[in-house]
């Protein structure tokens, strides 16, 4: 029972972590809460669904396709809705992000309709594997595996490549990075591309897991992933992973011990409590106020 719930929680949590990474990277670089991120996740799920049901491709190909599509979309959104606002107040950028999110979810509502769509039968062959007392499905293993691979890939890009170094420099100090000859605009576009790709992968995985894709799935998933990013310390990549896993596991355990109707409140209660005790999140760095 315990092991079973733990696996369920880790599977859900790794998806939260995938989405949370996008929030945390964008926030780390331009201190913007990208509220459209949840909608990118939703669009990713729909693209994956389209690829699987109309083009009959493998789930893995669908994930890659959705990632590429959302990558382009993320860069475009940044170009249209955030870049012109980089010099103005952060609140206007926030409203602009919310505008994008309303736009995308109503677009999805118009194109795909209000009812939840499911993946076709056998999109991914599900088998149950008995491990001790737990029934682990291959689907959960897929989710955990794909998330782990993507996160390792991200860690590699951020730590080992040149553009990753530029990203770290930009998030450290935007202006100095620009003075040092880093093309800051390109770094920001790249960050959006990376974050959106991860969100899209998360979207397809969630779509397969719950077998339901709907136009309003982005809002709650986005808010929770965002809570995960803050929980781990916003701006910190390992923090987002840890926060996502913690939220997923605690949500599943909360439901398992009988608080299913409070499901959505569990994540936020933990969030509020952690913020009150440690306002920078679990792995966040303390920001000193300049006078």
């Amino acid at each position, binding site marked *: 029972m315990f092991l079973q719930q733990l696996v369920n929680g880790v599977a859900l949590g790794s998806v939260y972590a995938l989405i949370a990474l996008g929030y945390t990277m964008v*926030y780390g670089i331009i*201190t913007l*809460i990208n509220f459209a991120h949840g909608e990118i996740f939703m669009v990713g799920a729909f693209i994956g669904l389209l690829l699987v049901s109309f083009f009959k491709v493998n789930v893995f190909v669908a994930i890659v396709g959705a990632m590429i599509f959302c990558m382009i979309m993320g860069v475009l959104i940044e170009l*249209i*809705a955030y870049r*012109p*606002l980089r010099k*103005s*107040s952060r*609140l*206007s*950028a926030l*409203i*602009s992000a*919310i*505008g*994008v*999110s*309303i*736009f*995308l*979810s*109503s*677009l999805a*509502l*118009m194109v795909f309709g209000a009812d939840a769509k499911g993946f076709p039968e056998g999109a991914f062959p599900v088998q149950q594997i008995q491990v001790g007392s737990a029934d682990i499905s291959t689907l959960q293993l897929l989710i955990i595996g794909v998330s782990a691979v993507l996160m390792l890939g991200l860690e590699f890009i951020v730590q080992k490549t040149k553009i990753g170094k530029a990203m770290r420099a930009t998030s450290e100090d935007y202006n100095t990075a620009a003075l040092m000859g880093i093309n800051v605009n390109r770094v920001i576009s790249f960050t959006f591309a990376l974050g959106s790709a991860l969100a899209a992968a998360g979207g397809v995985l969630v779509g397969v897991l719950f077998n339901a894709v709907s136009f309003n799935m982005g*809002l709650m998933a986005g*808010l929770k992933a*965002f*809570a995960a990013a*803050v929980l781990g310390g*916003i701006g910190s990549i390992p923090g987002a992973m840890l926060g996502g896993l913690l939220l997923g596991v605690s949500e599943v355990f909360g439901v398992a011990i009988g608080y299913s*109707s*409070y499901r*959505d*409140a569990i994540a*936020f*209660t933990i*969030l*509020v409590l952690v*913020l*009150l005790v440690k*306002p*920078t999140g679990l792995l966040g760095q303390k920001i000193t*106020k300049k*006078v």
Partner: protein
Amino acid sequence: MADFLNSLVGAVDPYMMQILVNVGVAIVLALGLNVIVGLTGQLSLGHAAFMSIGAFTSAMVTIKTGLPFSLNLVVTGVVTAIVAAAIGFPILRLTGDYLAICTLGFAEIVKVFFLNFEPTNKALGLTVPPAKTLIPMPIYVWVVAILSIVLVTFVQSSRFGRALKAIREDEIAAEAMGINTARYKIQAFALGSFLAGVGGGLYAHFLSYINPSDFGFLKSVDILAMVVLGGLGSVPGTVIGSSVLASAPEFLRFMSQYRMLVYGALLVFLMVFRPNGLLGGVNFTELLLRAVGKKRK
């Protein structure tokens, strides 16, 4: 008197009246948020939570006690303000985005709480009996809206309001100047939530049906957009912002299915071309003086 007012309301097209009432309620709500975000500079993403507390309190007061509506609204506002102060006490220590996130989390918790709260019918929502007042609802809403405009205008230029602006501009400097920032922030939060509660009470009694899901994240965002669109910290701006955004979905109704699509694009468009809001940075006294040909140094 009541008959006269009723005939006055009857003379206006009901559809227009609906829009007007929506605008009136939006003004009360947005002014409340303007005190918190615009004046004090504390970003709150949970205004709808206080609106829902107000709406449910007001509805329950009407159902259980049948107080006259004016008294009911005062009770509602005070209850909401007390809840806000109790919550503000711990969370207003946070600043900037962390505060925004905390208020957002709190708003979700309130929503889930009402979705599971037996006395208010859980997720089914609550049917609200008509308000106990002789004055027709639309006029009532606008009287309250005008009263709140007057209230916030006075607050803004008072000693209290100037302290709030000082906190908005620089919290550390304000603290150094001897302003008790913690106390002022909680008071501003309570005042803004008082208006949110009153707005929620009006909303509940005008629509006569409330559902916890109506007060979600998007509602908070709607109200915030009104404040930012009009121009942070500007009372006329907030009034214009709420009038525009509260009526926009109605005016966009002719393209019914593209309505929300256009609304989202409109928000982005307005922010890109007018990042400080329609009336942000516009000083009305200055304009007035310039109009009569005087320049102020």
